């Protein structure tokens, strides 16, 4: 019903644009007086009155409707006073399903029959009521605004003001997103820390939240919670995998950037640069599949050939593939930085008889260092926040290890493992995922901030 109503509102909006336009033209010809704005602005003016309040009312109705319907349908049960909140909402779902023809109750009591009837009745009424209110409002405002048009009204100003407000609201979405992220993470995290001390979370060595899940039936004492939520193995695993990724991507990315900016002919550049950037455009789930199905068995076979025991979900495989994914981040950022070093520095160095390598290593790299370090930091923050590769190719069990051939798990992996599928919301297990998310958010933000500061502070200004 929502779509039809919105379509109707839009239809009214289009019609009222023409009405407003027409009215303005009529005024112009009949009064022989100039209006303050061009005719079509009066059209927009009327259309805005027709559409915007109606949409706002519709939004309000849809967001509060379900609450009122539930109150009304359950009023008899609430009057009894013997139900808790959760029981009531369960009851409401059952009544809803019964109304749809699914038999849920063993015996239909008068109360339930009454509630089902009430639900059917209120659903129908509220739908009709919504149509009448919204369309009625829209129509009334169209009439009001049309009669409001006269040669003193400057509709252009009103329309432009509205647009500015609209644009400003859109730009606030970014702030609202940030606030939403921080609020949702903090809310759950604080509830988590009210049950598990923050020090246990940050310094504990044992991560096994599923144990809480198993023990849920019995009462869980704090010592158990403390032992289950030590995130150090996750931090270590994240660090290990990110380190492996950086070991692959830093040399390759940097050398590629040097080649692109200093050695390659324009033709090679034009071909190679976009191809390497493909690596950045490939969805991470593809890398995950590649790591789990091709690279991990390969690493295992090679390792076993050399007489080592390699886990089939080794950190090495996940880290290596992640490193390949990150190459373009480092190479294109560093490429830009190296290219932006002024030509005069290069020429000065060549004039002193330095070879290309000496110029690059001793002149260009030091000059470009802040930018390059910045790109490394951005790459690290990428590696830490990367999810799908580690979910698919790294281990799921938290184990404190520094051996790259062993299975290691990461922060992101655990978030997914905990939150995938059905979760009950009041368990510390679910909340721990939000605490991990907050950690991740803070760390990546800090890395990006530091990267920006490094670039800003240490970049040399030439000319």
């Amino acid at each position, binding site marked *: 019903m929502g779509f039809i109503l919105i379509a109707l509102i839009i239809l009214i909006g289009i019609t009222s644009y023409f009405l407003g336009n027409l009215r303005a033209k009529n005024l112009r010809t009949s009064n022989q007086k100039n209006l303050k704005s061009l005719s079509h602005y009066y059209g927009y003016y009327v259309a805005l009155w027709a559409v915007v309040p109606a949409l706002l009312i519709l939004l309000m109705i849809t967001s509060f409707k379900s609450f009122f319907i539930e109150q009304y349908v359950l009023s008899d049960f609430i009057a009894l006073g013997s139900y808790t909140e959760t029981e009531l909402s369960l009851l409401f779902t059952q009544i809803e399903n019964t109304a749809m023809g699914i038999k849920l109750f063993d015996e239909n009591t008068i109360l339930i029959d009454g509630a089902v009837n009430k639900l059917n009745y209120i659903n129908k009424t509220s739908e009709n009521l919504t149509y009448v209110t919204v369309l009625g409002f829209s129509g009334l405002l169209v009439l009001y605004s049309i009669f409001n048009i006269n040669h003193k009204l400057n509709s252009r100003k009103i329309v432009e003001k509205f647009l500015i407000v609209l644009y400003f609201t859109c730009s606030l979405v970014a702030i609202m997103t940030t606030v939403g992220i921080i609020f949702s993470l903090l809310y759950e995290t604080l509830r988590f820390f009210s049950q598990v001390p923050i020090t246990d979370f940050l310094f504990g060595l044992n991560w096994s939240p599923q144990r809480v899940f198993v023990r849920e039936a019995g009462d869980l004492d704090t010592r158990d919670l403390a032992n289950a939520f030590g995130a150090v193995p996750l931090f270590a695993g994240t660090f290990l995998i990110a380190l492996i990724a950086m070991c692959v991507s830093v040399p390759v990315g940097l050398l590629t950037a040097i080649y692109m900016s200093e050695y390659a002919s324009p033709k090679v550049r034009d071909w190679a640069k976009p191809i390497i950037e493909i690596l950045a455009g490939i*969805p991470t789930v593809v890398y995950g599949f590649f790591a789990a199905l091709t690279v991990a068995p390969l690493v295992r076979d090679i390792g076993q050939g050399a007489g080592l025991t390699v886990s089939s979900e080794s950190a090495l495989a996940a880290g290596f593939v992640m490193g390949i994914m990150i190459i373009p981040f480092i190479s294109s950022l560093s490429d830009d930085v190296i290219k932006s070093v002024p030509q005069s520095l290069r020429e000065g160095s060549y004039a002193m008889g330095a070879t290309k390598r000496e110029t690059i290593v001793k002149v260009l790299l030091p000059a470009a260092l802040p930018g390059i370090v910045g790109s490394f930091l951005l790459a690290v923050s990428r590696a830490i926040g990367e999810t799908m590769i580690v979910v698919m190719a790294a281990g799921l069990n938290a184990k404190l290890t520094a051996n790259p051939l062993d299975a290691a798990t990461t922060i992101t992996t655990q978030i997914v493992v905990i939150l995938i599928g059905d979760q009950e919301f009041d368990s510390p297990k679910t909340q721990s995922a939000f605490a991990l998310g907050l950690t991740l958010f803070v760390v990546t933000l800090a890395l990006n901030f530091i990267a920006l500061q490094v670039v800003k502070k240490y970049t040399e200004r030439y000319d």
Partner: protein
Amino acid sequence: MTDRIEQRINSLNKRLNSEKRFRIYCIGAMSFALAWVLILFLNIFSSGYSAFYRTVIQVDVPFLNLIEDTTQFSEMSSEDINNLSMYSFSKKAIYRLFPDIEEKKDKKMLIRLFSIEFEQEIREFLKSNKSNINETETIYLTASDDVDQVNKGNYPRDLDEDKRRIKDIQLLFFDDLVDRGLVSYEFNLPFLMRGDSREPELAGVGGSIVGSLFTILVVLILSFPIGIFAAIYLEEFAPKNKVTDFIEININNLAAVPSIVFGLLGLGIILNTFGLPRSTPLVGGIVLSLMTLPTIIIATRASLRAVPPSIREGALAVGATKMQAVMHHVVPVAMPGALTGTIIGLAQALGETAPLLLIGMVAFVVDVPQTPLDASASLPVQVYLWSESAERGYVEKTSATIMMLLGFLILMNLAAVLIRRKFETKW
């Protein structure tokens, strides 16, 4: 004297050699990066292309055994045909391939050469051809996943019998069928049309393609106007003050937030606080639009900034208001850049998986979704789901899904490049 010259020459040679070495390292690094692009694509394509055709086995179905006169089918409605009991009849039709086998166990093995929906397939054939059914009709039935994989050569036949899923006697049947020319390939249309299934030979990406389309549609509807309006405000109208600075810092930070954090936002706020339905493209689209907004805003701002001030000033000089100058003259010129940014943002959203896992778009959905409010998967999530399955048949399906995903991404990026080439104005 000669000593010093020799020394000089030696050191020069050393320097030149290290120059050469360095160059080789650089070329090596770049070739390494390029090689992995190639390896990745070859790997996916070589294991994925075979999912686009499937093995079918030709079976003669004697419809006369089901009914006395086959012309009667034309008078039956679809419902009547659905009510026909066809299971044992269908099995008998398959037994006719090998009339000699008597043992129940062998018969069961024979049936297992086919996908479990063989009865349904015969019924569908009957429904769509009910007006002209002959006494015996030749129907191509889908082979089971094991047979399909053996036929494509993906499955090793020389393992011990107890180590493989397909038994010796089934291989015997299969080879005989091949010799009789009853086994053939056809284009795997069901793979493109159907939803997910627990049986690899019946699983399709249709559901997740539609899910992805709905998600992208929601992203487009939300993030395109919001992104462009926000960019216009920040670039053209925003006063230089703390609020504006704060908004800008926020946008830049959001661009760097890991995608999984947006999943947590979706779970905590959109699902639990606002109570929108789980697992739906609507919620997925909202979460992904929040994620892609910074990309669109940053790209649009860059292209607005690239519009020369003379255009703005020209419009203002002939009496346009600020709003008119921007909306009639600056924005149209900056539109190609904004569109390019939007398409790139959409491509990002299309390939994103992690946030969708958290808002429950990993549900096992058999039906192709009809609206953005139906539970569904998306293409990358389908890749994740199938990659967790053990059956050999899902490997090629996963790779094929990746191929389609990459295909869509390449198309979108090509579109972005073309728009930029065609409409970009040089000043």
